[in-house]
C-alpha cells in the first residue's frame, strides 16, 4: 500500500516536473541538463494553463452525462477528501454532498443515501461527518446509511453491492472521478445512474487562462490520478 501511494505521488505532474527541473539544474553544464530544463519548463507551462489542463480532465468529465435517476431507490454518495489538516470537508466532498442533497430533494418517495468510503489515515469516520452534514441540511436520519468499511473506490463498489443488491441506485461523485467509479461498480455487476458533480473544466477561455495558474496543476494531478487509477483497476478482479 505504501509502495502504491509512493508510486502515485511520483506520478503527479507537480512532483515529476519538479524532479525533471531539478535534474536539469544539476546537469545544467551538460547538454542533457539543458534539454531537461527546456522540457521541464515546457511541460510546466502545459500543465499550468487552463486549456491544456482541461484537455486532460475533460475526457474524464464528459464520459458520463447526468441520467434521470427517478427510478433509483438509493443514492450512493462517494466521499471525497478532507481539508484543513483533515478537519473539514474538502471542496470536492462539499460539491458531491450538495449534488446528492439536490437529487434527494427532487424525489417524492425519499430514497436512502449511502455515504460510502472512509479515509484510513483519519482517527474518525469522515463518512459519519458527511452523514451529519447531510442531516443538518434536512435529510432524515433514518434515510442515511453510513458505509465506512471501504477505503478505495473499488472497495466502495463491493460494499455498496452488499447493501443495494439488485435495486437501482444513483451514483454521485465528482465528474472527473465518475469513469473510475462506474468502472468499479460495473466490475461488480452493478449498473448505476451516473450523477456527476464538481466539474473542473472550463467552458470558454479568456486571455488570462493562458497564464500559469496553480489550480490547473491540481487539475492535472487529479487527471493523472484518475488515468493511472483506471489502468490499475483494469487489472483488479472483484
Amino acid at each position: 500500500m505504501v509502495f502504491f501511494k509512493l508510486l502515485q505521488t511520483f506520478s503527479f505532474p507537480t512532483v515529476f516536473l519538479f524532479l525533471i527541473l531539478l535534474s536539469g539544474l544539476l546537469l545544467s553544464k551538460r547538454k542533457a541538463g539543458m534539454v531537461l530544463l527546456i522540457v521541464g519548463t515546457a511541460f510546466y507551462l502545459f500543465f499550468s494553463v487552463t486549456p491544456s489542463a482541461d484537455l486532460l480532465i475533460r475526457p474524464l468529465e464528459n464520459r458520463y452525462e447526468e441520467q434521470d435517476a427517478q427510478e433509483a431507490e438509493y443514492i450512493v454518495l462517494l466521499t471525497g477528501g478532507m481539508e484543513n489538516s483533515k478537519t473539514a470537508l474538502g471542496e470536492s466532498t462539499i460539491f458531491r454532498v450538495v449534488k446528492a442533497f439536490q437529487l434527494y430533494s427532487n424525489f417524492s418517495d425519499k430514497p436512502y443515501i449511502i455515504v460510502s468510503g472512509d479515509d484510513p489515515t483519519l482517527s474518525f469516520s469522515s463518512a459519519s461527518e458527511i452523514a451529519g452534514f447531510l442531516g443538518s441540511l434536512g435529510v432524515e436520519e433514518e434515510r442515511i446509511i453510513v458505509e465506512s468499511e471501504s477505503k478505495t473506490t473499488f472497495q466502495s463498489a463491493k460494499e455498496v453491492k452488499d447493501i443495494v443488491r439488485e435495486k437501482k441506485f444513483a451514483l454521485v461523485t465528482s465528474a472527473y472521478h465518475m469513469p473510475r467509479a462506474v468502472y468499479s461498480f460495473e466490475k461488480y455487476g452493478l449498473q448505476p445512474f451516473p450523477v456527476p458533480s464538481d466539474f473542473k473544466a472550463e467552458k470558454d477561455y479568456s486571455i488570462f487562462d493562458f497564464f500559469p495558474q496553480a489550480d490547473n496543476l491540481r487539475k492535472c494531478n487529479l487527471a493523472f490520478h484518475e488515468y493511472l487509477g483506471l489502468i490499475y483497476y483494469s487489472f483488479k478482479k472483484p
Partner: protein
Amino acid sequence: MTKLDVIIIVSVFVLIIWYLATNLPDIVKGF
C-alpha cells in the same frame, strides 16, 4: 543546443498534445 534539438523538442511536444487531444476521449470510453 542546436536548431535541430529545438525542432525535435517542439515536434515531440506538439505530437504529445495532438495525441492527447485526439485519443483521450476514446481511451476513457474503453474503460
